[in-house]
């Protein structure tokens, strides 16, 4: 049977991806350019018995998501730069309280109100460093409407598997453009639900590290009674100031990422095998970069594209290898230099790193990238 296809906007694809993943709670607040995610879910969630709530502000939206998720729902919020800034304290809370949830950030220009209807990629470092304290971070950067669908599903999977917030960042261009989407059949994409405790309610400890770095999560308010706090906590969830417990707890949180890089990492390479110049690009910018690679190859220039799909944790190993192989890595981004710093850090001086930066509300076009590549070769 032919698959169901549709011409969908990126934000609409995100909403349907969330539903595919089993999302049954959305708490949000209107903000351009992400509002369509909320609008679609306000219509669709009631149909499946899910709950859509437009909250009174961005902080409330994030808080409702945490409350709903701890209590056993698969919860989503969608926002943009100013909203993510307001949510930061609670994103840290979701990390320390080990609460699975997905945050969609449709990126516009910044800082502050910036350019609400224009594209930006200026939140990519905020996704890692936005909330205070050491904390685990997963951020995904889809580049097409189909990929927004599948990466939203994967974001839920990673959130549930590792008991933590996962951010999906895509710029306004990808969020608002329309593309043909093939809806995956049920079962075609993996859908992961959080591990439930196998012990009795009496024996349950919500943050017990003895069986691995990701303790099973019972539904808050069920017969499994437990304590949740934003303070550093012991295995039973109650606060502690014991040095060895606090230390172990924080290191375990980061280990959820560090020990599972292979599972979390995702990237695409295009014509990189023999590439002398590698373009490191993500989101809408990677689409210009792919076009540039095709044109450059026609002219005999050995250019290739490395496109991270998981941005955080950063694909360190592969980028370091490419830095050894290439003369230069070009990093086009809709900001004034963010991921190029990370590429530089990982390349350790093995090749030249050249940023192409644009923050005028216009996309980076293939010509700009091609001109930079030609300058190198």
């Amino acid at each position, binding site marked *: 049977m032919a698959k169901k296809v549709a011409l969908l906007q990126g934000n609409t694809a995100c909403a349907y991806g969330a539903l595919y993943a089993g999302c049954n709670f959305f708490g949000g607040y209107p903000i351009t350019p992400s509002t369509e995610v909320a609008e679609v879910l306000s219509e669709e969630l009631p149909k499946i018995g899910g709950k859509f709530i*437009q909250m009174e502000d961005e902080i409330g939206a994030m808080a409702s998501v945490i409350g709903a998720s701890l209590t056993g729902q698969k919860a989503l919020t969608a926002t943009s730069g100013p909203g993510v800034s307001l949510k930061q304290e609670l994103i840290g809370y979701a990390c320390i309280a080990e609460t699975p949830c997905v945050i969609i950030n449709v990126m516009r220009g910044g800082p502050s109100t910036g350019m609400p209807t224009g594209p930006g990629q200026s939140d990519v470092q905020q996704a890692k460093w936005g909330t205070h304290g050491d904390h685990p971070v997963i951020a995904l950067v889809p580049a097409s409407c189909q990929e927004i669908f599948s990466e939203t599903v994967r974001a839920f999977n990673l959130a549930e598997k590792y008991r933590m917030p996962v951010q999906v960042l895509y710029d306004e261009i990808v969020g608002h453009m329309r593309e043909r989407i093939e809806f995956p059949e049920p079962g075609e994409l993996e859908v992961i639900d959080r591990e439930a405790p196998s012990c009795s309610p009496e024996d349950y400890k919500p943050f017990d590290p003895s069986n691995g770095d990701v303790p099973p999560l019972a539904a808050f308010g069920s017969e499994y009674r437990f304590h949740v706090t934003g303070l550093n906590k012991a295995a039973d969830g109650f606060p502690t100031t014991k040095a060895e417990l606090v230390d172990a707890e924080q290191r375990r949180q980061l280990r959820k990422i560090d020990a599972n890089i292979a599972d979390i990492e995702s990237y695409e390479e295009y014509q990189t095998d023999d590439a002398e110049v590698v373009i490191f690009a993500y989101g809408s910018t990677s689409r210009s970069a792919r076009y540039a690679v095709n044109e450059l190859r026609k002219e005999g220039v050995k250019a290739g594209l490395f496109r991270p799909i998981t941005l955080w944790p950063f694909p360190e190993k592969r980028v370091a290898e490419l830095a050894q192989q290439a003369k230069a890595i070009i990093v086009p981004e809709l900001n004034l230099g963010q991921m190029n710093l990370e590429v530089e850090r990982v390349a350790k001086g093995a090749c030249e790193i050249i940023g192409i930066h644009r923050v005028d509300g216009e996309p980076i076009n293939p010509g700009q990238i091609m001109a930079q590549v030609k300058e190198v070769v």
Partner: protein
Amino acid sequence: MTTAAKTNVLNLSTEEFVHPGNRACSGCGLSILYRIGLKALGRDCIFVVPPSCLTVMQGLFPIAASQMPILNGTFASTAAIATGVRAAMKRRGKQTQVVAWAGDGGTADIGIQALSGALERNEDIIYICYDNEAYMNTGVQRSGTTPQGGLTTTTPYGKKEQGKNLPEIVAAHNPAYVATCSASYPLDFHDKLLKAKQISGLKYIHIQTPCPPGWGCEERMTVKIGKAAIDCGLFDLYEIEDGKKQLSEPSRKLLKKAKLPSVQEYLSMQTRFKALSDEQIAVMQERIDQKWADYRQEFCAE
């Protein structure tokens, strides 16, 4: 009660503080208020405005609609920024009127904490909320003041909850002055602003502001719809000074009427209410009838 001037079209100031041509939608109730309101506020005032239709209306460089100094703040912080501006103005010995001017989302939802703080401190500012009953600037999402049953892009089946009664929430803080206005009675707004300027402490003015694209009506119907909301007794114009409430003329004259037009007439002028059931409309009518029965007791006792 402080007495106020009675402005009419003949003695309304001809000085303009808004340039002709702006980026408001045609039929925008806010553009009426902004033009007439600035005439009352005069040149010696400054504005604090959060993201809202008003920021859009002010225009994009190089086509600006306003001649006034405006601080466009962040969404959650209008009354707090105004607090800082007011304090600095006082320290510099200036009497310049500080005016916070926000929409219903920026006032009833994300901005209510800042507003409540300013009310508690009784900051010497005028706070104006133009209430178009949804997030119109971002494309009609429900707000805390969207009426029950109202269709928006995030209440596709009609809003379940009742809207917040924001002027009453504000009045519970017991500020210096509370008034309600309508974009359909701009001169009433003008004169209430003149009065507010004479009062020290926080002055709150709440304006029902019809929005053709958001409410689902023709652009030419803005004033008519605003008047219909008042004539049927749904939205009232009043002032509260020293805790004492007094109906303003367009609402006060309804006290004399034995029967008000049904709310149905007002609702049927707008597509946003088409999901309302007959039962919901009956409940709405009952609430209005009860409110006016109470008003008659309160204001017609003698």
